[in-house]
């Protein structure tokens, strides 16, 4: 069965500094991987997805993630944090065999001025 582990429950950065949100996955099949963001009182929004094409995936709002099979990782990065990036971020794994998404427990990103 597939699973995903988000290594940090909270990450704090200053505005303008880089963001790194870590995610490791486990999957018996070739996985599809996603990052979703959840702003307060809003629905989940897809940031980016990896589906066996290019290993470096670019998403919205300047975020990107790199699929590293040897490390079973799919970390989310952004070169320069903005105050509006403060939210909860979820790493998600799925495979076409099960057609269900499995979410991690989430990482709360805090951005200070």
């Amino acid at each position, binding site marked *: 069965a597939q699973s995903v582990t988000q290594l940090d429950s909270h990450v704090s950065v200053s505005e303008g500094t880089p963001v790194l949100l870590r995610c490791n996955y486990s999957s018996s099949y070739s996985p599809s991987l996603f990052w979703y963001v959840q702003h307060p009182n809003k629905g*989940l929004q897809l940031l980016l997805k990896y589906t066996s094409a290019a290993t470096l995936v670019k998403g919205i709002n300047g975020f990107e993630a790199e699929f590293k099979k040897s490390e079973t990782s799919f970390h989310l990065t952004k070169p320069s944090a903005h105050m509006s990036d403060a939210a909860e971020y979820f790493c998600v794994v799925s495979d076409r065999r099960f057609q269900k998404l499995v979410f991690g427990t989430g990482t709360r990103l805090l951005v200070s001025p």
Partner: protein
Amino acid sequence: GAGVSQSPSNKVTEKGKDVELRCDPISGHTALYWYRQRLGQGLEFLIYFQGNSAPDKSGLPSDRFSAERTGESVSTLTIQRTQQEDSAVYLCASTPGTGYEKLFFGSGTQLSVL
């Protein structure tokens, strides 16, 4: 509407009572999912509807949980004889077709069972 709409946004109920949660998907979306998010946990899959096919109910945690969807419109998730462990945010999502990756989520219903 413009997005997935869920109601109520908050529901407080007493243990043992039945509750009904509603989801209005985006018009034209054939697939609809229900997920549950307990405090500090990831999302748990509950049930999946795709068009007129038989729903995938494999995620429903017990026979107290049921869900219906009429055609490609509104869905209701019913929890009978609620328990305190049912307290969670219940999220609904829809997607245009068989491609499940791009899910459009509602804002959820916060259920509190006292």
